[in-house]
């Protein structure tokens, strides 16, 4: 661990106490990130920086505030903390605000989550430029004469975080992220210039696909959009491609947050133990996946991370409840937010499933839209491919799906065998029947 980080965090705790805080949690972060992008076979942007900042949660006489600063000169930090404590004293008392009971800090898994890539230090400018150039070249070649523009980019981050609390919590985590991808704009019909992209993120460089595969994927995904149009409004089966599953799942998950339940903003508040989806619908929150993008040993409160089944064969089992809203609700805390959302995969590939579905739409992207966590109503624009008995008929765009989450997940008929590993939402492709798809 970086000694300076520890000294800063420990000194800040001490100063907060002496300024009058009766509880305090200090988080210190350092991240170094580098971004390289290419267009027209030369660098378009090169960006490099190191960030260092401190966040403090202050508890004074049942009062609470949270403050962050990037001005870390010693005198400035002292003044910042003194003011944070003084400010907190002016707020209304809230009997539910406190640091977590320290018993929730215990039992931390003694495992290496594999989320820090030790080879990151050796990741050189030449490596970065090489990856980006290869992605761009592969995309340009695959895109051929349809290419108007290709941009390829690579971003890597090394993050170091230390959290100390006045009631004995200490947590230290290092993590690396690599994101690589390309986007392509193609010449479509008339003035249309379809844009497609292909980006992957992994905590290990070795977890990314080859740069040429990423570039080719970007071109293929763009070319698939050519000739798109809307079709008439009809009720169809749909398949949501694995990488896009999180978009609709997030709308459902918003109803599972303790904060929304306590604030009467959840359509799922009274559904614990009840069936809200089909038998194919299971969600596990697994913070301990090796190499998972959302993997963690403790959450933002410092509560020890545990694997939980949130929805089991359509039955709602758990909510995401942090320490504060747990106290307000009188419930045991779980964790305030998902770590890695896992839907256990099925047995068949998308191609096999499409053959059996007849006419339907494979959704490869969403646009706009929203989900209402109070009512469960959702509506979102889609683009993708109309297929019939496994064969693509045409690309579709300017279309929409709308439903209520309490109805929608009951229509989940099958899940694919293809969980998406490049996100903290490890969703396979999701197959729904009888969905109204709006068009002309």
């Amino acid at each position, binding site marked *: 661990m970086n000694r300076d980080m520890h000294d800063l965090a420990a000194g800040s705790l001490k100063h907060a106490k002496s300024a009058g805080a009766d509880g305090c949690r200090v988080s210190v972060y350092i991240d170094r990130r580098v971004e390289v992008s290419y267009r027209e076979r030369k660098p378009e942007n090169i960006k490099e920086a190191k960030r260092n900042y401190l966040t403090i949660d202050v508890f004074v006489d049942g009062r609470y505030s949270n403050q962050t600063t990037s001005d870390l000169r010693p005198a400035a930090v002292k003044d910042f903390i003194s003011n944070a404590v003084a400010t907190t004293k002016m707020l209304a008392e809230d009997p539910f605000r406190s640091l977590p009971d320290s018993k929730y800090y215990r039992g931390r898994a003694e495992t290496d989550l594999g989320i820090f890539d030790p080879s990151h230090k050796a990741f050189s400018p030449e490596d970065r430029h090489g990856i980006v150039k290869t992605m761009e070249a592969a995309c340009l070649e695959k895109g051929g004469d349809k290419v108007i523009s290709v941009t390829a980019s690579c971003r890597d981050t090394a993050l170091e975080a230390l959290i100390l609390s006045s009631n004995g919590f200490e947590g230290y985590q290092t993590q690396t992220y690599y994101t690589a991808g390309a986007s392509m*704009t193609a010449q479509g019909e008339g003035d249309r*210039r379809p844009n497609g992209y292909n980006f992957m993120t992994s905590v290990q460089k070795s977890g990314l696909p080859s740069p040429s595969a990423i570039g080719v994927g970007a071109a293929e995904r763009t070319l698939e959009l050519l000739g798109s149009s809307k079709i008439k409004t009809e009720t169809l089966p749909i398949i949501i491609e694995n990488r896009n599953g999180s978009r609709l799942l997030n709308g459902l998950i918003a109803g599972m947050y303790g904060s929304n339940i306590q604030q009467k903003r959840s359509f799922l508040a009274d559904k614990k133990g009840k069936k809200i989806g089909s038998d194919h619908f299971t969600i596990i929150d697994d913070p301990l996946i090796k190499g998972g993008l959302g993997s963690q040993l403790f959450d933002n409160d410092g509560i020890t991370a545990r694997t939980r089944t949130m929805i089991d064969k359509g039955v709602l089992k758990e909510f995401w409840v942090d320490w504060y809203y747990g106290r307000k609700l009188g419930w045991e805390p779980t964790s305030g937010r998902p770590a890695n959302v896992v839907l256990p995969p099925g047995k068949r590939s998308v191609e096999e499933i499409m053959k059996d579905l007849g006419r339907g739409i494979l959704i490869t992207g969403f646009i706009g839209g929203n989900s209402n966590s109070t009512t469960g109503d959702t509506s979102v624009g889609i683009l993708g491919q109309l297929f019939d008995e496994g064969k693509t008929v045409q690309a579709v765009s300017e279309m929409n799906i709308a439903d209520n989450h309490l109805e929608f997940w009951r229509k989940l008929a099958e899940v694919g065998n293809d969980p998406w590993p490049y996100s903290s939402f490890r969703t396979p492709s999701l197959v729904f029947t009888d969905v109204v798809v709006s068009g002309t």
Partner: protein
Amino acid sequence: MRVRTRRSFLKTTAVAAGATAAAHVLPVGWYRLAYAGEAGYFESEFGITDALCQRALTAALAKGGDFADLYFEHTISNWTMLEDGKVNRAYADVELGVGIRTVKGQQVGYGFTQDLSKEAVLAAASTAATIADGEARKPAGEFVTLKTDNYYPLKRLLTSVPLDVKLPIVQAVNQKAFELSPLVVKASVGFHDQQKRMMVVTSAGAKVEDLLPRNYLWASVVAEKDGRRERAGWNLGGRKDFSFYTPEVVNRVASGAVDRTVKLFDAVQPPAGEMPVVLGPGLTGILLHEAIGHGMEADFNRKNISTYCTMIGKQVAEPFVTIIDDPTNTGMLGALNVDDEGTIGRKTVLVENGILTSYMHDKISATHYKLEPTGNGRRQSYQHYIQPRMCNTYMLGGQSTPEEVIKSVKKGIYVKDVSNGQVKIGEGDFAFYVSQGRMIEDGKLTAPIKDMNIMGNGPKMLRNTTMVANDPKMSESGAGWCGKGGQRVPVGFGLPTCLVKSMTVGGVKA
């Protein structure tokens, strides 16, 4: 409690200066700093001298490049929030740093640092310099301070407003919300204020400082009726002085949230399919911003990836349609005295009487098109490089009355509030979430509608705008953000009542 100096107070205090007694004893003369463009803040507070800027720009051009610039920023942000009847939480953020850019043609090298020491600034400049590979260039020998107008005059800095002055405003919105309807069961209320100080120094010898306020008061309300719950919110704000937050504004924020929530109990989802859409005045300007405005940002056009890239000088709308981007609207969220690369803000006519006349430019795109930059070079913070972005984008009013526009529709929808818009630049396709609206049947507004998308294509929507009313209105929201390329900037927008003769409405019934 010890009295603090102005200098240490400003550097370190985020949540409400009133947290310390010092806030109450600050001399009146201190407030003169509220005048935008007054030079010297970064030198007096952080020791950023012209000599250091010279050295940094020299380092940024050490390998050549067309130009380089420095963007210093010190931003203090506060959120004061109420839940369950008490102002029981406050959040704050202090950002300090410099971003350094070297530009060679359309290529950008960028480094930033939070440490304003000479060594750290020069290291960031050396990072930016790596984009070029030629002979070193020298920056201008001296800097000339640019004069700006002031589109966000302040009587006092919001960071000087004590917390105990803000608290009653937040509490009053909560109290009013519960008074307005017995159906209200929960209210979340908050006040956000931000003060961004920035200084741009360019290798061409320009230097300019600005102080940008941003603030808003918001409420989100949950109501219950017959076992059903609905939620909606409302906010008012912009680049305002604190005196904007009067009892009338308190009432408007509370009633805006409560009225919108209670109305939802009668709302239905319309049938799906294509139909005429009437866009109400004000907030629906977000459609103009997303579906049309983004395609007119010059970076997308110089790369030939916008659907508008071949349309300059061409008819893109009916002759009664004129669209403007304007950073000079006083107090609006997208107001700018000077943009983030040192270009003085000015009004740009994008579409004049139906003809596409201009894109929105930063320096890179202006150089590409051999034009003057339009003052649209913006960035989220010192951690981000410049992109062409909108400021306040609006359509001028037409000849029809709003009643005539609605009366012209036999069956369609009237859109009052929209959110969560997104556009695909190359195709022009867009989707927006309609949170408030009405059915139109036989030329009359009927049942409220909610929670559905409207879909369309930007250029097609512009061509299909067949009526424009004489009631232009700007959105009064202070909470609007626009996202592009991973960066968020505050923007304003506006629209008169308009008829779009056909759009796809995403309902639940086929």
